[in-house]
């Protein structure tokens, strides 16, 4: 198939970017979206134009590295990661607009690559359970009810790709935080630090310049791991509890 691609090009963080249009022919529907960009890059390289920078690593939908805004949707039209999107979701003659995640807390590094270091810093502020190596009790000494374990697991599937932020009209990272709060909060091991965790993570979130949540739900719809909106409810509840406890 033949495609027209409008792609954001930006030399570096300080540069002014612009949309540029490329025509690409010979795309097969079995290609993944990123393989389609690989083909374009090979052609650009041959023509002497610098290839388009974009992030990807595992290309099997689990590492969370890739992430493009495709025709106005984070990770494109399917509920999956950009690397697992295949060209059979498009048709011959389509025009596709490709942009980086847009959020001031995710500054553009180059072309379609952004810096998501803010997520790491949010985790640094409490997205963990403090358990020094060697200090752990026997694993089966604390049973975890299966429903709680299951909910914890479901929220732990977040891959930290940033699609929630990209899709949110407010540029909020509430879904990301909510997933972590719920993952750790459902487990008995996560209780001692629960109040401090939510307060510090939210504090860092606000400091990074993410917006506040207005419960619109675009994040959950864009999430390739289908993290549900109720984690934001959990996040709010935990914050309210912490507030009550005087944190």
């Amino acid at each position, binding site marked *: 198939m033949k495609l027209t691609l409008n792609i954001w090009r930006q030399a570096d963080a300080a540069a002014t970017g612009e949309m540029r249009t490329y025509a690409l022919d010979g795309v*097969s529907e079995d290609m993944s979206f990123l393989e389609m960009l690989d083909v374009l890059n090979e052609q650009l390289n041959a023509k*002497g134009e610098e290839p388009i920078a974009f992030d990807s*690593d595992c290309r*099997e939908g689990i*590492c969370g590295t890739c992430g493009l805004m495709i025709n106005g949707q984070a990770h494109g039209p399917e509920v999956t990661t950009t690397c697992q999107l*295949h060209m059979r979701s498009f048709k011959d003659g389509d025009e596709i607009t490709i942009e980086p995640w847009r959020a001031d807390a995710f500054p553009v590094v180059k072309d379609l690559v952004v810096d998501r270091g803010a997520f790491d810093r949010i985790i640094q502020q409490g997205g963990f359970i403090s358990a020094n190596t060697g200090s752990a009790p026997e694993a*089966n000494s604390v*049973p975890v009810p*299966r429903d709680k374990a299951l909910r914890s697991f479901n929220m732990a599937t977040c891959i930290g790709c940033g699609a929630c932020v990209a899709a949110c009209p407010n540029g909020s990272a509430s879904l990301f935080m909510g997933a972590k709060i719920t993952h750790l909060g459902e*487990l008995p091991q996560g209780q001692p630090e629960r109040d401090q965790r939510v307060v510090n993570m939210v504090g860092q979130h606000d400091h990074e310049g993410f917006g506040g949540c207005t419960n619109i739900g675009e994040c959950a719809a864009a999430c390739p791991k289908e993290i549900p909106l109720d984690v934001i409810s959990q996040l709010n509840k935990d914050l309210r509890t912490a507030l009550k406890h005087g944190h």
Partner: protein
Amino acid sequence: MAMTDASGTVALNQPSVQTSDDAAGYYTPGEPIVDAKAPTGPIATRWTNRKFENRLVNPANRRKLTVIIVGTGLAGGSAAATLGEAGYNVKSFCYQDSPRRAHSIAAQGGINAAKNYKEDGDSVHRLFYDTVKGGDYRSRESNVYRLAEVSANIIDQCVAQGVPFAREYGGLLDNRSFGGVQVSRTFYARGQTGQQLLIGAYQALERQVAAGTVTTYTRHEMLDLVMVDGKARGIIARDMVTGAVETHTADVVVLASGGYGNVFYLSTNAMGCNVTAAWRAHRKGAYMANPSYTQIHPTCIPVSGEHQSKLTLMSESLRNDGRIWVPKNKEDCDKDPRDIPEEDRDYYLERIYPSFGNLVPRDIASRQAKNMCDEGRGVGPMVGDFRRGVYLDFADAIARLGKAGIEEKYDNLLDMYERITGENPYEVPMRIYPAVHYVMGGLWVDYDLQSNIPGLFVTGEANFSDHGANRLGASALMQGLADGYFVLPNTIRDYLADGPFETVTEDHPEVVAAHQAVQARIERFLSIDGERSADSFHKELGHLMWEYCGMERTAEGLRKAIDGIRELKREFWSNLKVLGTADSLNQSLEKAGRVADFLELGELMCIDALNRRESCGGHFRAESQTEDGEALRIDEEFAYVAAWEFGTAVENDPNEPQSSMGTPVLHKEDLIYTAIEMKQRSYK
């Protein structure tokens, strides 16, 4: 006559004596490795004794000691967190934009641990035994025993961190049997065990960042090892965003940089996985051990065309219910499989291995799939001259368990398959094909995980130590975390007890030289100004490697591959085209550096494979098989670790100043077993 060691422990085998010499002319014989620093005595006491013998570092001194850790996967992330907790000053490097993205994240199946929660006869000794046997008796027994010993602690540690392992209704941890073993010792978190374990390690690491003990350097790629007075004292790394070439010095360097499966171009590795950190250390003198030991996983989604950038693994568990077949007749290969009658199907694994059937080990399942395709009975689209795929059919299982039953067990996997191929596996048999998945080879380390370069430690997939010639399912995660959480922190302290070492400044001549060499190499890539992209060279290299150094290897093919790689390397250094600049994010430049190292590694892998004229584990030499075509291991000749020393170039070729590679030197480390007797595998 039985040999005994100092403590009176009896050796069960004699050192082997190699009589064949297929690789003559390609290598130089070197001194054998006599001391791998493995403790002696009864195997069950060795690790305990070593932990006690190893010296301690005063807590007050720890913050004065700097540890560089390259890689943030299970092995690197867990080590960085643990050493940070202990109070060392840790610098953690990764090429990804976050430590959480290291490729350990993609591991699906699970992690083994000798907890014996099922009371089904598991024990440390049985896990040890299974791992050595699974590795086809090509691993060091002391290391493997230690691995089995600490496996239970890993589960405790991970649960305490909040890793959401699967649980039973009573709230206790669930286990499953995995990878053909007869006990249920595998802990899992649905099909995402690697992700959950890595996030646990990542969170522990980030906690230490906030505590100020660990500094992370993301989007940084190690491009050289800094050696001062024969010791590893730091690294040269490139900030991939600004392009700055930085010097980082330390008291000790740990490489936890993963495997090099991407030398095959197509593999289940992530796009960025590379050998550069390990190869640069190798070029500085670290031995590379058993580089040709590659694991090829039988159940991957087949290649669909020339554009393919990577292969996707599907959990081996699919073989529990799916039946593998190809058409009996070549003419049927392009037919709709549903139209091929039962009598025209060849369920070849069930036919050849009646007792194990579809559950034969990975290497056998992979090799037989290749044989079927080589016979012209492969299915799926033509890629090159062959159809590369065999059917994995769930029709019988659906008839037996119902569609809902299959859905419940494998839904995620089948969904993923449909997403990638566009075919519905509930209606049409799936197509699978083997793909490179893991490398057992890696930098040589002693029992303490220290390479032959003092101060350079290597952990996880980057070292060679625990899996022998074949890795069992659910053992990679175990090894990564064992190394990082429990082994390295206990061995590195013996080395650091001599520190802090004399400060190395950036203007030290050896540092300056390393820095300049890195810069010169980068400039070289940008100035060749040829016609071909690094990716195109990589693809060609991968093709050679897969064809001649893949599932089945012959002396003739390997020699051909070596010639081909040398030719390709020459072209690379004269016809490469890298656009852009060195002072910004430049993915083509990164790729060029990685491909340059893969080209050198590929040659060494072929030489190693050529030398090893036996079939063992994942390494099948056509010249060494039984009458009925099964792998024939030759313990009398090859029960040793092949540790290769980088061969300094005899003469400097002016055309390839950056790639001059001399004849490698082979050092052998004999594998002597005292706790286990070597046996031939049989799955008939």
